[in-house]
């Protein structure tokens, strides 16, 4: 598959980043800036991926049963459900929506 180079390239990049933490001079990385930026990027990327998977369809926005999954997942998280329950609740909500004839 054409995805293979990107799969392996992403694996290599992930490893090099991990290795860089050990090999780069301490003074270069030992700044709170890096912790803060890494934390901010993690939140921003996860928020973006949540939205894209909830309403994205190629290069357009599609509102469908995935919104039910988003809402149901949020309720499960509010009730402090464990991760796997949250994932399953999201799946069930979308499946039920489709059974009921929603897109």
């Amino acid at each position, binding site marked *: 598959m054409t*995805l293979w180079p990107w799969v392996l390239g992403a694996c290599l990049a992930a490893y090099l980043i991990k290795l860089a933490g050990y090999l780069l001079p301490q003074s270069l990385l030992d700044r709170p800036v890096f912790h803060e930026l890494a934390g901010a990027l993690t939140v921003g990327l*996860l928020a973006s991926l949540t939205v894209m998977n909830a309403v994205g369809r190629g290069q357009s926005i599609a509102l469908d049963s995935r919104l039910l999954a988003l809402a149901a997942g949020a309720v499960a*998280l509010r009730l402090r459900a464990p991760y796997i329950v949250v994932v399953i609740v999201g799946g069930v909500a979308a499946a039920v929506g489709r059974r009921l004839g929603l897109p």
Partner: protein
Amino acid sequence: MGLSIAVAVGVYGISFGALSVGSGLDVWQTCALSALMFTGGSQFAFIGVVAGQGTGAAAWAAATLLGIRNGVYGMQLKALIRPPGRLIPLMAQLTIDESTATATAQDDHDERVRGFWTAGVGVYVLWNASTLVGALVGNSIGDLSAWGLDGAAVAAFLGLLWPRLHGRDPVAIAVVAALATLLTLPLLPPGIPVLVAAAVTAGWWAWRRRAVVAP
């Protein structure tokens, strides 16, 4: 405590395996991500972009940006454990959220070393085994959207984001990134809105930081 972490890693790995084949990767590619990349957040980012019909390049970039925190972990562990040079290539591969958290939670040097290796190796074995199980299950399900697998993916990302939303700044960043994604989804090729959101996040963070530092 070890058991609860093991159960959590196991179910997380099964979710990843199933969602990965649902996004369009094959079983081998799914297993390669867990064996070689071995950092859950980046793996989810990769398949999340692919599921949204983004390009391999966009998936690569999203996964790589999310992996930056592992570099920070490596630096912390090096300062904490002071490992011999010959172990560093192996330690680097096992440097993830769980092994770093376990090592930094201990008080003396030997306990930290033991904590790192136990958590790192334990999670590695479990993560790869559960990924394979999830990928095979996902492969045998058939019509994935009828089973709500795309909905499960949405909930999975929300579940990764949720525990990080403590305090005002993370919530503001999440809202800004979400809006940037929503606005650019219809305008840009698939996958690119995630990178725009990352850039906007970095810009927002730099602006906030300046506002806090300079009174």
